[in-house]
């Protein structure tokens, strides 16, 4: 059931010019936050950073059809782009990066990039990989049970597909034809482990057949292709046709985290080559070539986002740290104030 999906003109997708520019701006916001976060890391102000660079196309593309306030987001740590679409602000991101008391994900308890916000419908995830996949199925079960119109989407890396929980979650979701979309951001590595040592197949999407659900491979660096395949999966989910497995082929430009040194496991030439498929630059070219915007306007966007990121950093940095006296709170509901 897996099929190749290639670039498509935005018109047929129902995306207007405003949508396209907003998508581009969000991708750029993710990228500039990433770069700023790494600068903060080098300055000694952010002990731990999880880079997103390279994944912006598949993240913004697959997140865009989701409806904030109705649908539920079940992301993983690399999904800075996803949570921006869900409504998290750059300042909130940096509150998390600096583990401030008002960090919306955990009040500075979890590592940065462990997204969560009940208000935004973003479900908290932990560090153990793939545990969120059955959660997504369970939320979708509750939606169906309650006759809601919602859709759940869960994102994960290709490494995550090796865990038992991944299998169990997909199996249960497909048995009940639940309104959930599973999105694999396949960047070919799980930290240092290459895909060839992670699985014996070329495509994660080839696993869909074993669950009786549609599986698609899409170019993850093509934001519009990602949008299209997600839009269709989202529609199927709402129509009661059950889950879809989407595999976005992409690449991470930077080390796994700020603690990683990727030189031991992949060549600089490989990384350099992949940078030529930058999803942001590709989308910018599409927008300019299609006459939707021009380079000068894009530069203005760049400058605006940069300013926004800088002021987010400043505001977040000045926010108060968590009070150690709160460390024992919220183990149980009755500990809550």
């Amino acid at each position: 059931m897996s099929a190749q999906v290639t670039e498509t003109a935005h018109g047929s997708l129902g995306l207007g010019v405003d949508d396209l520019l907003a998508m581009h701006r969000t991708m750029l916001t993710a990228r500039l936050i990433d770069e700023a976060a790494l600068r903060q890391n080098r300055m000694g102000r952010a002990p731990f950073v999880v880079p997103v660079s390279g994944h912006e196309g598949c993240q913004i593309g697959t997140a865009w059809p989701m409806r904030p306030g109705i649908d539920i987001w079940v992301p993983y740590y690399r999904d800075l782009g996803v949570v921006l679409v869900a409504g998290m602000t750059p300042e909130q991101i940096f509150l998390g990066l600096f583990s401030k008391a008002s960090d919306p994900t955990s009040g500075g308890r979890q590592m940065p990039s462990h997204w969560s916000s009940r208000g935004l419908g973003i479900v908290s995830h932990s560090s153990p990989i793939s545990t969120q996949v059955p959660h997504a199925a369970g939320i979708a079960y509750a939606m169906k049970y309650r006759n809601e119109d919602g859709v759940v989407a869960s994102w994960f890396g290709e490494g995550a597909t090796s865990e038992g929980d991944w299998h169990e979650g997909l199996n249960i979701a497909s048995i009940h034809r639940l309104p959930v979309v599973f999105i694999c951001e396949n960047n070919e590595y799980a930290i240092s482990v290459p895909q060839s040592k992670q699985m014996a197949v070329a495509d994660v999407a080839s696993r869909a057949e074993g669950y009786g659900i549609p599986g698609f491979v899409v170019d993850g660096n093509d934001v519009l292709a990602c949008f299209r395949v997600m839009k269709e999966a989202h529609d199927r989910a709402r129509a009661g046709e059950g889950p879809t497995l989407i595999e976005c082929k992409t690449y991470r430009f930077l080390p796994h985290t700020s603690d990683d040194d990727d030189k031991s496991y992949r060549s600089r030439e490989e990384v350099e080559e992949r940078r030529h498929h930058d999803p942001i630059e590709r989308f910018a070219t599409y927008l300019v070539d299609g006459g939707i915007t021009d380079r000068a306007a894009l530069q203005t966007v760049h400058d605006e986002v940069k300013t926004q990121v800088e002021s987010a950093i400043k505001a977040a940095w000045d926010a108060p740290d968590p009070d150690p006296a709160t460390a024992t709170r919220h183990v149980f509901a009755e500990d809550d104030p």
Partner: protein
Amino acid sequence: MTEKNLVTAIHDTLHDEMAADDRVVLIGQDVGARGGVFKVSEGFMAEFGEQRVIDAPLAESGIVGVAIGMALHGLLPVAEIEFADFIHPAFDQILSEASRMRYRTNGDWGCPMVIRAPCGGGIHGALYHSQSIEAFYAHIPGVKVVMPSTPADAAGLLHTAIADPDPVLFLEHKKCYRLIKGDVPDVPQPTPIGQADVKREGTDLTVVSYGYELHRCLDAAARLEQDEGIHAEVVDVRSLAPLDTETILVSVRKTARAMVVYEDNRTYGAGAEIAATIAERAMFDLDAPIVRIGGPDIPAMPFAGALEHYYMEPEPDHILVAMRDLAHF
């Protein structure tokens, strides 16, 4: 009040909770047409439908993980693990996910859910249908662990567990299921989680226990009182986590002699925490060393009758002997 056995008390309470609140759903293997291997959900599928009584695939981590998702989105799932021995594939979902959801989100999300698991030995279940699992789970901050030993407590604690905003592991000792009978209130009487219960008053020594062993302790206490005039106080822990240290300490300070009895493997078992707590906080109130009786440190009860008996009920009755020795120390 109606007299029921323990498994009927659980069946009836779960039934009433499901009838009262359609957010309560049951998920587990064989809970549907089969009504559960111990018949806890007999008749439920016909009454509440397949949407609420969910026959799950053979995937414990998935069952608990899906229940977490349900709990995050407005349902009150009760996940049944067919035998407690099979809960371990879900250890990570319980430890890393259910128990930490509230803490790691600084109180933003929570997981109101119950995991039911029939545990314990003495029913000819061999190594993998006999295990005690409470020590592993009671050590996880963020999860509550209870084990009722009477039908009334089973009903009261299940009622409370379903209403609790946090995950509760609800352990049911299989040997008590049909063996233990007692009056159960006809309208639900919530039993608070985190409260031990003095099941028998006495003055000469304190015996702290729970589950099936509690009944063996009560039995020994009755015989000792009748035959030898020894008055043992028997405390039913009921809630392993949170542990009600106060009730235990009050009793121990009164009798000045303490004994802890549990079925699980002795070393690093739940009784260690109870004994340690007494040692730290009531040592100078004691007239004798703390006595701790746990199961042997072997995987679990073997199948062969003689081997199982060796584990479950060594002879002469070591509980009674230890109680007598402690009383006379």
